[in-house]
């Protein structure tokens, strides 16, 4: 009987000592965790794409909570996320317009030729490294879909030999921009629809030879534009999106129809 009592007492004492020890260390070594950090982290999309420049959403949340990043630093979440985070941080967020990726090539199989002699690994970067002739156009989309492979949202499809971004799915993380060895993909403001869909910097006749849908640098679009938003440099038209009013006049006039028309046109 005695041993039972002693055992119970000793275990109880050990339990109390251990419990007190835990409480003591819990108080003594309490680390202040910034509650805003976890709240901010909740708002972020959580796909850890790294488009903000930080190592994933956790790192961005820590940076925002510490004041090292602005509340609208997440390009994927865009305005809704920025507003939520702004509420947590007690700031009003200026809306950042979301961006989507756009592949500036229109060279599908029916407009350009693909007499390439490349038979290696089906990967754009390998194809470019090989130095072999893959597409006639030295600037065009190779169509092996290295961009589609890196896309975390499965938003890129290779259709008819040209990569295309599904706008609805694209979050604008920019991973495909880095993946394209020919630098065809750019991030454009999500509201902008009028985009030059070519990257060929050759002179008109040479472009004509390799692709019937390529920009020939005729400058008709420049003359059409009322807001000074489209210019031809290096034989290639490009649009300054901040000036562009999406009127679509350049797209109408383009002889090779390489400028995408505005929605509803």
């Amino acid at each position, binding site marked *: 009987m005695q041993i039972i009592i002693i055992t119970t007492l000793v*275990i109880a004492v050990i339990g109390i000592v251990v419990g007190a020890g835990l409480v003591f260390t819990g108080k003594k070594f309490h680390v202040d965790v910034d509650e805003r950090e976890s709240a901010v982290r909740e708002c972020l999309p959580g796909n850890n794409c790294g488009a903000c420049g930080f190592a994933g959403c956790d790192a961005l949340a820590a940076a925002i909570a510490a004041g090292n990043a602005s509340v609208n630093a997440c390009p994927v979440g865009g305005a809704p996320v920025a507003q939520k985070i702004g509420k947590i941080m007690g700031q009003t967020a200026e809306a950042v317009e979301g961006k989507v990726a756009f592949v500036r090539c229109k060279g599908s199989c029916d407009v350009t030729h693909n007499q390439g002699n490349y038979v290696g690994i089906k990967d754009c970067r390998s194809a470019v490294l090989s130095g072999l002739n893959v597409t006639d156009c030295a600037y065009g989309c190779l169509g092996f879909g290295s961009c589609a492979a890196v896309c975390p949202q499965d938003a890129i499809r290779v259709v008819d030999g040209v990569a295309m971004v599904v706008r609805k799915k694209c979050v604008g993380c920019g991973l495909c921009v880095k993946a394209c060895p020919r630098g065809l993909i750019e991030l454009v403001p999500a509201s902008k629809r009028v985009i030059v869909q070519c990257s060929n910097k050759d002179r008109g006749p040479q472009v004509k030879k390799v692709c019937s849908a390529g920009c020939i640098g005729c400058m008709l679009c420049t003359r059409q534009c009322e807001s000074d938003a489209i210019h031809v440099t290096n034989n290639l038209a490009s649009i300054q999106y901040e000036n562009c009013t999406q009127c679509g006049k350049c797209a109408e006039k383009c002889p090779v129809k390489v400028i995408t028309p505005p929605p509803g046109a």
Partner: protein
Amino acid sequence: MKSLILIIITGALINNVVLNQFLGICSFLGVSKQMKASASLGGAVIFVITIASAVASLLYDYVLAPLGMDFMKTIVFILVIAALVQIVEMFLKKTSPGVYKALGIYLPLITTNCAVLGVALTNVQDGYNFIESVFSGFGTAVGFTLAIVLLASIRTRIREEDIPAPLRGAPIVLISAALMSIAFMGFSGLSF
């Protein structure tokens, strides 16, 4: 001094906690997918087992044995080790965030690792004193780390290989672990 070195070698190789005594199998198989994670877990295990065997030894020598409470050692050790890991975790979090980041998620995992309890009980069983217990704990934990790092490196190699379909995944890992265990049986021929 010689006997202490022998205790470490015995704990690490001859009586390897995983491959010879089959303790701590859960984390051995669970966390051995990647080299880095398994090495971190190994570090955390060395840390915890060394401290736990020291505390368990003190507790046994000065509380349990004098009071004739030998039969309660399992329960007391569980209680104390669980609390100890928590305290160590809080301590690390405050004092060295770097170490905490490296070992952090593995520390609570180790709380319930039977290898920790196993070492504390084996020390008592073998009649080790305080110093011997600490060395034995350290040696055993090194043995655990060795085993898990070896298995992790084998698994990274296996992943690249063309393995017959029925054996893919867990079966081939268990077979590898069994072969490692047989290999480690070779050490039992060591006698000092």
